[in-house]
Protein backbone atom coordinates (compact mmCIF):
# COMPACT_ATOMS: atom_id res chain seq x y z
CA UNK A 1 0.00 0.00 0.00
CA UNK A 2 1.27 3.45 -0.85
CA UNK A 3 0.24 6.72 0.75
CA UNK A 4 1.65 10.10 -0.23
CA UNK A 5 1.99 11.84 3.13
CA UNK A 6 1.51 15.22 1.47
CA UNK A 7 -2.08 14.23 0.76
CA UNK A 8 -2.95 13.19 4.30
CA UNK A 9 -4.80 15.59 6.58
CA UNK A 10 -2.32 17.57 8.62
CA UNK A 11 -1.43 16.01 11.99
CA UNK A 12 -2.55 12.55 10.96
CA UNK A 13 -1.66 9.70 13.30
CA UNK A 14 -0.28 6.57 11.65
CA UNK A 15 -0.03 3.36 13.65
CA UNK A 16 1.57 -0.01 13.01
CA UNK A 17 3.54 -2.85 14.52
CA UNK A 18 6.91 -1.81 13.22
CA UNK A 19 8.05 1.44 11.72
CA UNK A 20 10.98 1.37 9.30
CA UNK A 21 12.48 4.76 8.60
CA UNK A 22 14.15 4.81 5.19
CA UNK A 23 13.54 2.83 2.00
CA UNK A 24 17.03 2.04 0.77
CA UNK A 25 18.46 -1.49 0.52
CA UNK A 26 18.29 -1.95 4.31
CA UNK A 27 14.76 -0.61 4.81
CA UNK A 28 13.23 -2.34 1.81
CA UNK A 29 14.99 -5.64 2.60
CA UNK A 30 13.49 -5.60 6.08
CA UNK A 31 10.05 -4.53 4.87
CA UNK A 32 9.92 -7.33 2.30
CA UNK A 33 10.64 -9.87 5.05
CA UNK A 34 7.31 -8.87 6.59
CA UNK A 35 5.19 -9.02 3.45
CA UNK A 36 2.17 -11.35 3.79
CA UNK A 37 2.51 -11.45 7.57
CA UNK A 38 -0.09 -10.43 10.10
CA UNK A 39 1.96 -7.44 11.14
CA UNK A 40 1.36 -3.91 9.94
CA UNK A 41 4.59 -2.40 8.68
CA UNK A 42 4.99 1.35 8.29
CA UNK A 43 7.74 2.17 5.79
CA UNK A 44 8.66 5.86 5.79
CA UNK A 45 10.42 7.49 2.86
CA UNK A 46 11.40 11.16 2.92
CA UNK A 47 11.21 11.53 -0.84
CA UNK A 48 8.98 10.14 -3.54
CA UNK A 49 9.54 7.56 -6.25
CA UNK A 50 11.81 9.85 -8.25
CA UNK A 51 14.58 12.32 -7.62
CA UNK A 52 13.39 15.58 -6.09
CA UNK A 53 16.07 18.20 -5.60
CA UNK A 54 14.17 19.97 -2.84
CA UNK A 55 14.07 16.77 -0.79
CA UNK A 56 17.65 15.87 -1.72
CA UNK A 57 18.77 19.22 -0.33
CA UNK A 58 18.21 17.95 3.22
CA UNK A 59 21.31 15.76 2.72
CA UNK A 60 23.56 18.78 2.14
CA UNK A 61 26.13 19.48 4.82
CA UNK A 62 29.64 20.71 5.49
CA UNK A 63 32.77 18.59 5.39
CA UNK A 64 36.16 19.06 7.02
CA UNK A 65 39.36 17.05 7.47
CA UNK A 66 40.23 14.74 4.58
CA UNK A 67 38.66 16.12 1.42
CA UNK A 68 35.31 14.48 0.71
CA UNK A 69 32.50 14.45 -1.83
CA UNK A 70 29.68 17.00 -1.42
CA UNK A 71 27.38 15.40 1.16
CA UNK A 72 24.27 16.28 -0.81
CA UNK A 73 25.35 14.11 -3.71
CA UNK A 74 26.89 11.26 -1.70
CA UNK A 75 23.51 9.61 -0.98
CA UNK A 76 20.13 9.53 -2.73
CA UNK A 77 16.98 10.57 -0.91
CA UNK A 78 14.09 8.82 -2.63
CA UNK A 79 12.47 5.37 -2.77
CA UNK A 80 15.24 2.82 -3.25
CA UNK A 81 17.80 5.14 -1.69
CA UNK A 82 21.35 5.06 -2.94
CA UNK A 83 20.74 1.77 -4.73
CA UNK A 84 19.36 4.05 -7.45
CA UNK A 85 22.92 4.74 -8.55
CA UNK A 86 25.15 2.08 -6.98
CA UNK A 87 27.50 -0.04 -9.07
CA UNK A 88 26.61 -3.48 -7.69
CA UNK A 89 29.92 -4.64 -6.18
CA UNK A 90 29.37 -7.36 -3.56
CA UNK A 91 31.65 -9.46 -1.41
CA UNK A 92 31.32 -10.68 2.18
CA UNK A 93 33.58 -9.46 4.92
CA UNK A 94 36.41 -11.82 5.88
CA UNK A 95 36.43 -13.65 9.23
CA UNK A 96 39.33 -11.48 10.38
CA UNK A 97 37.22 -8.35 9.84
CA UNK A 98 35.00 -9.29 12.78
CA UNK A 99 37.81 -10.08 15.21
CA UNK A 100 39.51 -7.85 17.70
CA UNK A 101 42.92 -7.10 16.22
CA UNK A 102 45.37 -5.66 18.72
CA UNK A 103 47.02 -3.60 15.98
CA UNK A 104 43.73 -1.97 14.91
CA UNK A 105 42.38 0.30 17.64
CA UNK A 106 38.66 -0.09 18.39
CA UNK A 107 38.37 -3.21 16.20
CA UNK A 108 36.16 -6.20 16.95
CA UNK A 109 32.48 -6.98 16.48
CA UNK A 110 30.24 -8.75 19.00
CA UNK A 111 29.28 -11.14 16.18
CA UNK A 112 31.44 -13.12 13.80
CA UNK A 113 31.37 -14.15 10.18
CA UNK A 114 29.58 -17.44 10.96
CA UNK A 115 26.76 -15.48 12.59
CA UNK A 116 26.26 -13.61 9.32
CA UNK A 117 26.80 -16.47 6.86
CA UNK A 118 23.13 -17.59 6.68
CA UNK A 119 22.08 -13.98 6.16
CA UNK A 120 24.74 -13.40 3.51
CA UNK A 121 23.25 -16.39 1.66
CA UNK A 122 19.77 -14.84 1.88
CA UNK A 123 21.03 -11.39 0.90
CA UNK A 124 22.36 -12.84 -2.38
CA UNK A 125 18.72 -13.09 -3.54
CA UNK A 126 17.82 -9.54 -2.54
CA UNK A 127 20.71 -8.29 -4.65
CA UNK A 128 20.13 -10.63 -7.62
CA UNK A 129 23.51 -12.26 -7.15
CA UNK A 130 24.61 -15.79 -7.95
CA UNK A 131 25.08 -18.60 -5.44
CA UNK A 132 26.69 -17.81 -2.11
CA UNK A 133 30.04 -18.94 -3.46
CA UNK A 134 33.01 -16.70 -2.84
CA UNK A 135 35.83 -19.16 -3.45
CA UNK A 136 37.80 -18.35 -6.59
CA UNK A 137 37.92 -22.02 -7.63
CA UNK A 138 34.13 -22.13 -8.01
CA UNK A 139 34.22 -19.39 -10.66
CA UNK A 140 37.44 -20.57 -12.26
CA UNK A 141 35.80 -23.95 -12.88
CA UNK A 142 33.19 -22.16 -14.96
CA UNK A 143 35.78 -20.40 -17.10
CA UNK A 144 39.23 -21.89 -17.61
CA UNK A 145 40.53 -18.54 -18.87
CA UNK A 146 40.17 -17.11 -15.36
CA UNK A 147 43.72 -17.89 -14.32
CA UNK A 148 45.27 -16.80 -11.07
CA UNK A 149 48.15 -14.36 -11.28
CA UNK A 150 49.86 -16.11 -8.39
CA UNK A 151 50.53 -19.82 -7.87
CA UNK A 152 49.73 -19.93 -4.15
CA UNK A 153 47.61 -17.98 -1.72
CA UNK A 154 49.48 -18.04 1.56
CA UNK A 155 50.42 -14.37 1.34
CA UNK A 156 48.21 -12.88 -1.35
CA UNK A 157 44.92 -14.55 -2.28
CA UNK A 158 42.11 -14.08 -4.76
CA UNK A 159 39.07 -12.55 -3.11
CA UNK A 160 35.88 -12.90 -5.14
CA UNK A 161 33.43 -10.10 -5.86
CA UNK A 162 30.04 -10.84 -7.36
CA UNK A 163 28.17 -8.19 -9.31
CA UNK A 164 24.56 -7.27 -8.82
CA UNK A 165 22.90 -6.16 -12.12
CA UNK A 166 22.94 -3.68 -10.11
CA UNK A 167 19.63 -4.11 -8.35
CA UNK A 168 17.73 -0.84 -8.10
CA UNK A 169 15.61 -1.45 -5.03
CA UNK A 170 13.08 1.21 -6.04
CA UNK A 171 12.00 -0.21 -9.39
CA UNK A 172 12.48 -3.82 -8.27
CA UNK A 173 10.34 -3.70 -5.15
CA UNK A 174 7.92 -0.82 -5.86
CA UNK A 175 5.18 -3.02 -7.24
CA UNK A 176 5.41 -5.58 -4.43
CA UNK A 177 5.35 -2.93 -1.76
CA UNK A 178 2.61 -0.81 -3.32
CA UNK A 179 0.48 -3.94 -3.74
CA UNK A 180 1.25 -5.32 -0.30
CA UNK A 181 -1.65 -5.44 2.10
CA UNK A 182 0.39 -5.10 5.24
CA UNK A 183 3.33 -2.93 4.17
CA UNK A 184 2.23 0.70 4.23
CA UNK A 185 4.69 2.88 2.37
CA UNK A 186 4.46 6.58 3.14
CA UNK A 187 6.38 8.77 0.74
CA UNK A 188 7.25 12.39 1.53
CA UNK A 189 7.41 11.50 5.20
CA UNK A 190 10.68 12.93 6.54
CA UNK A 191 11.47 11.98 10.10
CA UNK A 192 12.23 15.12 12.10
CA UNK A 193 11.88 13.98 15.70
CA UNK A 194 11.74 10.93 17.93
CA UNK A 195 9.73 11.05 21.13
CA UNK A 196 10.40 8.62 23.96
CA UNK A 197 8.61 7.89 27.20
CA UNK A 198 9.43 9.90 30.29
CA UNK A 199 12.58 8.02 31.28
CA UNK A 200 13.66 7.62 27.65
CA UNK A 201 13.60 3.83 27.73
CA UNK A 202 10.97 3.27 25.02
CA UNK A 203 10.16 5.20 21.84
CA UNK A 204 6.53 6.26 21.76
CA UNK A 205 6.32 7.93 18.38
CA UNK A 206 8.16 9.75 15.64
CA UNK A 207 7.26 12.94 13.86
CA UNK A 208 7.40 13.29 10.09
CA UNK A 209 7.15 16.37 7.91
CA UNK A 210 7.05 17.26 4.24
CA UNK A 211 7.43 20.33 2.10
CA UNK A 212 3.65 20.55 1.68
CA UNK A 213 3.70 21.81 5.25
CA UNK A 214 2.14 18.68 6.72
CA UNK A 215 3.26 17.07 9.95
CA UNK A 216 2.21 13.60 11.07
CA UNK A 217 2.79 11.26 13.98
CA UNK A 218 3.80 7.61 13.60
CA UNK A 219 3.35 5.13 16.44
CA UNK A 220 4.64 1.57 16.50
CA UNK A 221 5.87 -1.16 18.80
CA UNK A 222 9.34 -1.14 17.29
CA UNK A 223 11.21 1.49 15.32
CA UNK A 224 14.06 0.79 12.92
CA UNK A 225 16.24 3.59 11.60
CA UNK A 226 17.43 2.64 8.12
CA UNK A 227 18.47 5.99 6.69
CA UNK A 228 22.23 5.46 6.12
CA UNK A 229 25.08 6.21 8.47
CA UNK A 230 25.05 9.98 8.25
CA UNK A 231 21.29 10.39 8.54
CA UNK A 232 20.86 7.81 11.31
CA UNK A 233 23.41 9.67 13.44
CA UNK A 234 21.92 13.01 12.51
CA UNK A 235 18.43 11.89 13.55
CA UNK A 236 19.62 10.51 16.89
CA UNK A 237 21.70 13.59 17.67
CA UNK A 238 18.86 15.92 16.70
CA UNK A 239 16.37 14.07 18.93
CA UNK A 240 17.67 16.06 21.89
CA UNK A 241 14.58 17.49 23.53
CA UNK A 242 14.47 14.80 26.22
CA UNK A 243 18.19 14.02 26.32
CA UNK A 244 20.39 17.02 25.49
CA UNK A 245 23.13 14.89 23.94
CA UNK A 246 20.65 13.04 21.72
CA UNK A 247 19.09 9.60 21.84
CA UNK A 248 21.37 6.66 22.52
CA UNK A 249 24.22 9.05 23.10
CA UNK A 250 24.85 8.63 26.82
CA UNK A 251 28.48 7.82 26.11
CA UNK A 252 29.07 10.41 23.40
CA UNK A 253 29.42 7.78 20.70
CA UNK A 254 26.63 8.64 18.26
CA UNK A 255 28.16 10.04 15.08
CA UNK A 256 31.69 8.94 15.97
CA UNK A 257 33.74 6.30 14.16
CA UNK A 258 32.47 7.40 10.76
CA UNK A 259 34.26 5.18 8.29
CA UNK A 260 34.77 5.17 4.55
CA UNK A 261 36.76 2.99 2.23
CA UNK A 262 39.85 4.64 0.93
CA UNK A 263 39.78 4.14 -2.80
CA UNK A 264 43.02 5.23 -4.38
CA UNK A 265 45.41 4.37 -7.18
CA UNK A 266 48.51 3.02 -5.50
CA UNK A 267 50.93 1.23 -7.78
CA UNK A 268 51.62 -0.10 -11.24
CA UNK A 269 52.21 -3.67 -12.34
CA UNK A 270 54.56 -4.42 -15.23
CA UNK A 271 54.34 -7.90 -16.69
CA UNK A 272 56.99 -9.66 -18.71
CA UNK A 273 54.32 -10.83 -21.14
CA UNK A 274 50.90 -9.40 -22.03
CA UNK A 275 48.15 -10.90 -19.92
CA UNK A 276 44.41 -10.14 -20.02
CA UNK A 277 44.12 -10.99 -16.30
CA UNK A 278 40.62 -12.29 -16.94
CA UNK A 279 40.17 -13.49 -13.38
CA UNK A 280 40.45 -9.86 -12.29
CA UNK A 281 38.62 -8.20 -15.17
CA UNK A 282 35.15 -6.73 -14.94
CA UNK A 283 32.87 -5.70 -17.77
CA UNK A 284 29.96 -3.72 -16.38
CA UNK A 285 26.65 -5.55 -16.84
CA UNK A 286 28.34 -8.69 -18.15
CA UNK A 287 30.76 -10.03 -15.53
CA UNK A 288 29.15 -12.11 -12.79
CA UNK A 289 32.24 -12.49 -10.63
CA UNK A 290 35.85 -11.43 -10.55
CA UNK A 291 38.69 -11.35 -8.07
CA UNK A 292 40.78 -8.73 -6.41
CA UNK A 293 44.07 -9.49 -4.72
CA UNK A 294 43.81 -9.58 -0.94
CA UNK A 295 46.30 -10.10 1.85
CA UNK A 296 45.99 -13.23 3.97
CA UNK A 297 44.89 -12.88 7.59
CA UNK A 298 48.24 -14.26 8.74
CA UNK A 299 50.14 -11.59 6.82
CA UNK A 300 47.82 -8.85 8.09
CA UNK A 301 48.61 -9.97 11.60
CA UNK A 302 52.34 -10.37 11.00
CA UNK A 303 52.70 -6.93 9.46
CA UNK A 304 50.02 -5.31 11.62
CA UNK A 305 48.13 -3.85 8.71
CA UNK A 306 44.54 -3.16 7.76
CA UNK A 307 42.52 -5.28 5.34
CA UNK A 308 42.56 -4.00 1.80
CA UNK A 309 42.31 -5.31 -1.73
CA UNK A 310 43.82 -4.49 -5.09
CA UNK A 311 42.12 -4.33 -8.47
CA UNK A 312 43.65 -4.03 -11.94
CA UNK A 313 42.97 -1.59 -14.77
CA UNK A 314 45.04 -1.54 -17.97
CA UNK A 315 47.41 1.38 -17.59
CA UNK A 316 46.48 2.86 -20.95
CA UNK A 317 42.92 3.23 -19.66
CA UNK A 318 43.65 4.06 -16.04
CA UNK A 319 45.92 6.96 -16.91
CA UNK A 320 42.99 8.70 -18.60
CA UNK A 321 40.52 8.24 -15.75
CA UNK A 322 40.25 11.21 -13.46
CA UNK A 323 40.12 10.53 -9.71
CA UNK A 324 36.58 10.28 -8.30
CA UNK A 325 37.25 13.08 -5.84
CA UNK A 326 37.83 15.39 -8.84
CA UNK A 327 34.86 14.35 -10.95
CA UNK A 328 32.26 13.75 -8.24
CA UNK A 329 32.30 17.38 -7.17
CA UNK A 330 28.81 18.69 -7.82
CA UNK A 331 26.14 19.06 -5.14
CA UNK A 332 23.62 17.64 -7.60
CA UNK A 333 24.14 13.84 -7.61
CA UNK A 334 22.92 13.59 -11.20
CA UNK A 335 25.61 15.99 -12.41
CA UNK A 336 28.30 14.34 -10.31
CA UNK A 337 27.31 10.93 -11.62
CA UNK A 338 27.44 12.19 -15.19
CA UNK A 339 30.88 13.71 -14.68
CA UNK A 340 32.23 10.60 -12.93
CA UNK A 341 30.89 8.13 -15.48
CA UNK A 342 31.85 10.45 -18.31
CA UNK A 343 35.50 10.30 -17.27
CA UNK A 344 35.46 6.49 -17.14
CA UNK A 345 33.56 6.04 -20.40
CA UNK A 346 35.80 8.50 -22.21
CA UNK A 347 38.93 6.74 -20.98
CA UNK A 348 37.62 3.34 -22.08
CA UNK A 349 36.43 4.67 -25.43
CA UNK A 350 39.70 6.41 -26.25
CA UNK A 351 42.01 3.57 -25.27
CA UNK A 352 42.75 0.34 -27.01
CA UNK A 353 43.87 -2.68 -25.08
CA UNK A 354 45.44 -5.43 -27.18
CA UNK A 355 43.46 -8.67 -27.46
CA UNK A 356 46.23 -10.58 -25.77
CA UNK A 357 45.95 -8.20 -22.83
CA UNK A 358 48.03 -5.42 -21.47
CA UNK A 359 51.58 -5.57 -20.13
CA UNK A 360 51.00 -2.80 -17.63
CA UNK A 361 48.20 -2.30 -15.12
CA UNK A 362 47.27 0.28 -12.57
CA UNK A 363 46.82 -1.25 -9.13
CA UNK A 364 43.92 0.36 -7.30
CA UNK A 365 43.29 -0.02 -3.58
CA UNK A 366 40.09 -0.37 -1.62
CA UNK A 367 40.93 -0.50 2.06
CA UNK A 368 39.18 -0.18 5.39
CA UNK A 369 40.03 2.81 7.53
CA UNK A 370 40.87 2.18 11.15
CA UNK A 371 37.90 3.01 13.41
CA UNK A 372 38.60 6.51 14.62
CA UNK A 373 36.46 8.37 17.19
CA UNK A 374 37.55 11.70 15.71
CA UNK A 375 36.12 10.81 12.33
CA UNK A 376 32.56 11.85 12.99
CA UNK A 377 29.18 13.35 12.22
CA UNK A 378 28.03 16.37 14.18
CA UNK A 379 25.12 18.76 13.85
CA UNK A 380 25.38 22.16 12.24
CA UNK A 381 23.49 25.23 13.41
CA UNK A 382 21.95 25.63 9.99
CA UNK A 383 18.69 23.76 9.45
CA UNK A 384 17.23 22.18 6.35
CA UNK A 385 13.77 22.94 4.98
CA UNK A 386 12.22 20.43 7.41
CA UNK A 387 13.73 22.17 10.41
CA UNK A 388 16.41 19.53 11.03
CA UNK A 389 19.97 20.62 11.82
CA UNK A 390 22.23 19.78 8.90
CA UNK A 391 24.96 17.16 9.24
CA UNK A 392 28.64 18.01 9.31
CA UNK A 393 31.22 15.40 8.43
CA UNK A 394 34.77 15.48 9.73
CA UNK A 395 36.55 12.67 7.89
CA UNK A 396 39.83 11.77 9.53
CA UNK A 397 42.35 9.11 8.63
CA UNK A 398 45.27 7.73 10.62
CA UNK A 399 48.83 6.77 9.74
CA UNK A 400 47.84 3.09 9.79
CA UNK A 401 45.94 3.36 6.51
CA UNK A 402 48.93 4.64 4.58
CA UNK A 403 51.41 2.23 6.13
CA UNK A 404 49.01 -0.61 5.29
CA UNK A 405 48.67 0.38 1.64
CA UNK A 406 52.45 0.57 1.28
CA UNK A 407 52.90 -2.85 2.86
CA UNK A 408 50.13 -4.38 0.73
CA UNK A 409 51.96 -3.41 -2.45
CA UNK A 410 55.29 -4.47 -1.07
CA UNK A 411 53.78 -7.92 -0.42
CA UNK A 412 52.13 -8.05 -3.84
CA UNK A 413 55.42 -6.92 -5.39
CA UNK A 414 57.25 -9.72 -3.63
CA UNK A 415 54.73 -12.33 -4.70
CA UNK A 416 54.65 -11.38 -8.37
CA UNK A 417 58.45 -11.25 -8.26
CA UNK A 418 58.56 -14.70 -6.72
CA UNK A 419 56.18 -15.93 -9.41
CA UNK A 420 58.58 -14.53 -12.01
CA UNK A 421 55.71 -12.72 -13.66
CA UNK A 422 56.02 -9.04 -13.03
CA UNK A 423 57.38 -6.18 -11.00
CA UNK A 424 55.43 -3.59 -9.04
CA UNK A 425 56.16 0.11 -8.78
CA UNK A 426 54.56 2.06 -5.94
CA UNK A 427 53.21 5.50 -6.67
CA UNK A 428 55.24 8.44 -5.47
CA UNK A 429 53.06 9.20 -2.45
CA UNK A 430 53.89 5.77 -1.02
CA UNK A 431 57.62 5.85 -1.61
CA UNK A 432 58.68 7.70 1.55
CA UNK A 433 57.59 5.59 4.50
CA UNK A 434 57.83 8.61 6.80
CA UNK A 435 55.49 10.74 4.71
CA UNK A 436 52.09 10.80 6.43
CA UNK A 437 50.35 13.05 3.91
CA UNK A 438 47.73 11.99 1.37
CA UNK A 439 47.81 13.01 -2.29
CA UNK A 440 45.06 15.24 -3.73
CA UNK A 441 43.51 12.30 -5.62
CA UNK A 442 42.65 10.41 -2.39
CA UNK A 443 39.03 9.35 -2.70
CA UNK A 444 36.37 7.52 -0.76
CA UNK A 445 33.95 4.96 -2.13
CA UNK A 446 30.68 6.66 -1.13
CA UNK A 447 30.55 3.96 1.55
CA UNK A 448 29.35 5.47 4.80
CA UNK A 449 29.83 3.23 7.81
CA UNK A 450 30.05 3.46 11.58
CA UNK A 451 28.37 6.35 13.49
CA UNK A 452 26.17 3.97 15.55
CA UNK A 453 28.70 1.21 15.89
CA UNK A 454 27.92 -2.22 17.24
CA UNK A 455 29.58 -3.39 20.45
CA UNK A 456 28.97 -5.75 23.33
CA UNK A 457 29.48 -2.85 25.71
CA UNK A 458 27.42 0.37 25.81
CA UNK A 459 30.56 2.29 26.67
CA UNK A 460 32.08 1.38 23.33
CA UNK A 461 29.07 1.10 21.06
CA UNK A 462 25.69 2.65 20.32
CA UNK A 463 23.91 -0.60 19.41
CA UNK A 464 24.20 -4.13 20.75
CA UNK A 465 24.75 -7.31 18.77
CA UNK A 466 21.09 -7.22 17.69
CA UNK A 467 21.40 -3.64 16.39
CA UNK A 468 19.25 -2.36 19.28
CA UNK A 469 20.15 1.04 20.66
CA UNK A 470 21.47 0.56 24.18
CA UNK A 471 19.09 1.73 26.92
CA UNK A 472 16.13 2.06 24.55
CA UNK A 473 13.95 -1.03 24.39
CA UNK A 474 12.38 -0.68 20.97
CA UNK A 475 14.75 1.38 18.82
CA UNK A 476 16.99 -0.35 16.29
CA UNK A 477 19.44 0.77 13.65
CA UNK A 478 19.74 -1.04 10.34
CA UNK A 479 22.55 -0.83 7.86
CA UNK A 480 26.22 0.03 7.72
CA UNK A 481 25.95 2.54 10.57
CA UNK A 482 26.22 -0.52 12.83
CA UNK A 483 29.53 -1.70 11.36
CA UNK A 484 32.29 -1.79 13.96
CA UNK A 485 34.94 -2.00 11.26
CA UNK A 486 34.70 -1.34 7.56
CA UNK A 487 36.59 -4.29 6.02
CA UNK A 488 37.60 -3.98 2.37
CA UNK A 489 34.44 -4.93 0.46
CA UNK A 490 31.71 -2.57 -0.61
CA UNK A 491 29.19 -2.55 2.24
CA UNK A 492 25.87 -3.30 0.54
CA UNK A 493 25.91 -7.10 0.80
CA UNK A 494 26.89 -6.97 4.45
CA UNK A 495 24.39 -4.27 5.35
CA UNK A 496 21.57 -6.22 3.69
CA UNK A 497 22.67 -9.39 5.52
CA UNK A 498 22.77 -7.54 8.82
CA UNK A 499 19.33 -6.05 8.12
CA UNK A 500 17.85 -9.51 7.46
CA UNK A 501 19.32 -10.68 10.74
CA UNK A 502 17.78 -7.68 12.50
CA UNK A 503 14.45 -8.42 10.87
CA UNK A 504 14.50 -11.98 12.22
CA UNK A 505 15.31 -10.63 15.66
CA UNK A 506 12.39 -8.18 15.68
CA UNK A 507 10.06 -10.90 14.40
CA UNK A 508 11.10 -13.07 17.33
CA UNK A 509 10.43 -10.19 19.71
CA UNK A 510 6.94 -9.64 18.33
CA UNK A 511 6.11 -13.32 18.57
CA UNK A 512 6.92 -13.33 22.26
Amino acid sequence: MHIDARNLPDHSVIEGDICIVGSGPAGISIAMEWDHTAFKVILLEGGGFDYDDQVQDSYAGKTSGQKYFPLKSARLHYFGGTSNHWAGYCSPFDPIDFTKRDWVPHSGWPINREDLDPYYARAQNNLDLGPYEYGAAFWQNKDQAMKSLLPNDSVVWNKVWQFSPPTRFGPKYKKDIVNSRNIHLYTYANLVDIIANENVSVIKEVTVRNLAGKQHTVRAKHFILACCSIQNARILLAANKQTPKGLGNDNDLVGRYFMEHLEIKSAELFLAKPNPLKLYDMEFGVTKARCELAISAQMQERHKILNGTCSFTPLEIARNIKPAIETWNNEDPRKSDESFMGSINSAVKNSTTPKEGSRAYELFTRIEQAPNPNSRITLDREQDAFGMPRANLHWELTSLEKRSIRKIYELIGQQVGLAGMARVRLMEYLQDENDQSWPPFTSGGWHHMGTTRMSDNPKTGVVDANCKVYSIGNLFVAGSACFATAAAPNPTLTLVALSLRLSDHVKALLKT
Partner: protein
Amino acid sequence: MKRRNFILLSVSTAAFITIPFVRCTNRNAGWAKSLSRPLFLSQICDANTLREIGNAYRAQSPDEATENQLVNKILGDQGYKAHFKDENDPRFLAFLDEKILRDFSTDQTLIIKGWVVSTTEARQCALASLIKP
Protein backbone atom coordinates in the same frame (compact mmCIF):
# COMPACT_ATOMS: atom_id res chain seq x y z
CA MET B 1 117.26 11.46 0.37
CA LYS B 2 118.61 11.96 -3.06
CA ARG B 3 116.21 13.25 -5.63
CA ARG B 4 116.65 10.08 -7.74
CA ASN B 5 116.02 7.78 -4.81
CA PHE B 6 113.03 9.85 -3.78
CA ILE B 7 111.52 9.53 -7.23
CA LEU B 8 112.16 5.80 -7.36
CA LEU B 9 110.70 5.34 -3.93
CA SER B 10 107.68 7.42 -4.81
CA VAL B 11 107.10 5.56 -8.05
CA SER B 12 107.50 2.17 -6.44
CA THR B 13 105.23 3.14 -3.56
CA ALA B 14 102.60 4.38 -5.97
CA ALA B 15 102.93 1.20 -7.96
CA PHE B 16 102.70 -0.86 -4.79
CA ILE B 17 99.47 0.82 -3.92
CA THR B 18 98.00 1.30 -7.37
CA ILE B 19 98.80 -1.95 -9.16
CA PRO B 20 96.86 -4.16 -6.74
CA PHE B 21 94.02 -1.64 -6.80
CA VAL B 22 93.92 -1.67 -10.57
CA ARG B 23 94.17 -5.44 -10.54
CA CYS B 24 91.50 -5.51 -7.93
CA THR B 25 89.13 -3.22 -9.83
CA ASN B 26 89.74 -5.03 -13.04
CA ARG B 27 89.66 -8.59 -11.85
CA ASN B 28 85.83 -8.61 -11.72
CA ALA B 29 85.26 -6.46 -14.76
CA GLY B 30 83.81 -9.30 -16.80
CA TRP B 31 81.57 -10.43 -14.01
CA ALA B 32 80.49 -6.85 -13.28
CA LYS B 33 79.53 -6.22 -16.86
CA SER B 34 77.59 -9.43 -17.04
CA LEU B 35 75.84 -8.72 -13.77
CA SER B 36 74.93 -5.15 -14.68
CA ARG B 37 71.97 -6.25 -16.77
CA PRO B 38 69.18 -7.57 -14.54
CA LEU B 39 67.37 -9.78 -17.01
CA PHE B 40 63.80 -9.51 -15.81
CA LEU B 41 63.92 -5.83 -14.94
CA SER B 42 65.49 -5.09 -18.31
CA GLN B 43 62.38 -6.46 -19.99
CA ILE B 44 60.16 -3.92 -18.31
CA CYS B 45 62.44 -0.95 -17.55
CA ASP B 46 64.54 1.20 -19.82
CA ALA B 47 68.25 1.70 -19.16
CA ASN B 48 67.68 5.07 -17.58
CA THR B 49 65.26 3.61 -15.01
CA LEU B 50 67.75 0.86 -14.18
CA ARG B 51 70.44 3.49 -13.58
CA GLU B 52 68.06 5.52 -11.41
CA ILE B 53 67.38 2.47 -9.27
CA GLY B 54 71.12 1.79 -9.15
CA ASN B 55 72.02 5.34 -8.15
CA ALA B 56 69.37 5.33 -5.43
CA TYR B 57 70.64 2.00 -4.13
CA ARG B 58 74.24 3.20 -3.98
CA ALA B 59 73.11 6.36 -2.19
CA GLN B 60 71.48 4.30 0.54
CA SER B 61 74.25 1.67 0.67
CA PRO B 62 77.56 3.58 0.81
CA ASP B 63 79.53 0.45 1.69
CA GLU B 64 78.64 -0.97 -1.71
CA ALA B 65 80.21 1.76 -3.79
CA THR B 66 82.58 -0.15 -6.06
CA GLU B 67 82.14 -2.76 -8.73
CA ASN B 68 84.11 -5.26 -6.67
CA GLN B 69 82.04 -4.73 -3.59
CA LEU B 70 78.83 -5.13 -5.56
CA VAL B 71 80.03 -8.20 -7.45
CA ASN B 72 81.11 -9.84 -4.21
CA LYS B 73 77.83 -8.94 -2.52
CA ILE B 74 75.87 -10.46 -5.39
CA LEU B 75 77.98 -13.56 -5.75
CA GLY B 76 78.57 -14.03 -2.06
CA ASP B 77 82.32 -14.76 -2.05
CA GLN B 78 85.11 -15.65 -4.38
CA GLY B 79 83.93 -19.24 -4.60
CA TYR B 80 81.78 -18.54 -7.62
CA LYS B 81 84.83 -18.72 -9.83
CA ALA B 82 85.18 -22.35 -8.90
CA HIS B 83 81.57 -23.03 -9.84
CA PHE B 84 81.37 -21.21 -13.14
CA LYS B 85 83.80 -21.34 -16.00
CA ASP B 86 83.33 -17.63 -16.58
CA GLU B 87 80.59 -15.03 -16.59
CA ASN B 88 79.19 -16.53 -19.79
CA ASP B 89 78.62 -19.93 -18.21
CA PRO B 90 74.90 -20.75 -18.73
CA ARG B 91 74.75 -22.06 -15.17
CA PHE B 92 75.65 -18.57 -14.04
CA LEU B 93 72.38 -17.13 -15.40
CA ALA B 94 70.37 -19.88 -13.74
CA PHE B 95 72.19 -19.17 -10.50
CA LEU B 96 71.23 -15.50 -10.74
CA ASP B 97 67.59 -16.30 -11.48
CA GLU B 98 67.44 -18.57 -8.46
CA LYS B 99 69.12 -16.00 -6.28
CA ILE B 100 66.57 -13.36 -7.26
CA LEU B 101 63.67 -15.72 -6.58
CA ARG B 102 65.22 -16.59 -3.24
CA ASP B 103 65.37 -12.87 -2.44
CA PHE B 104 61.65 -12.54 -3.13
CA SER B 105 60.81 -15.55 -0.99
CA THR B 106 62.96 -14.50 1.97
CA ASP B 107 62.00 -10.84 2.25
CA GLN B 108 65.31 -9.75 0.75
CA THR B 109 63.56 -7.04 -1.18
CA LEU B 110 63.72 -3.27 -1.26
CA ILE B 111 61.51 -0.44 -2.39
CA ILE B 112 63.70 1.80 -4.50
CA LYS B 113 62.25 4.70 -6.47
CA GLY B 114 58.96 2.92 -5.87
CA TRP B 115 60.07 -0.37 -7.44
CA VAL B 116 59.75 -3.50 -5.37
CA VAL B 117 62.97 -5.25 -6.39
CA SER B 118 65.09 -8.03 -5.04
CA THR B 119 68.30 -6.97 -3.30
CA THR B 120 70.25 -8.76 -6.01
CA GLU B 121 68.45 -6.81 -8.70
CA ALA B 122 69.13 -3.56 -6.85
CA ARG B 123 72.84 -4.39 -6.79
CA GLN B 124 72.75 -5.26 -10.48
CA CYS B 125 71.23 -1.86 -11.14
CA ALA B 126 73.93 -0.27 -9.00
CA LEU B 127 76.52 -1.95 -11.21
CA ALA B 128 74.72 -0.64 -14.27
CA SER B 129 74.88 2.85 -12.86
CA LEU B 130 78.62 2.50 -12.27
CA ILE B 131 79.51 0.96 -15.60
CA LYS B 132 77.27 3.17 -17.75
CA PRO B 133 76.62 6.24 -15.61
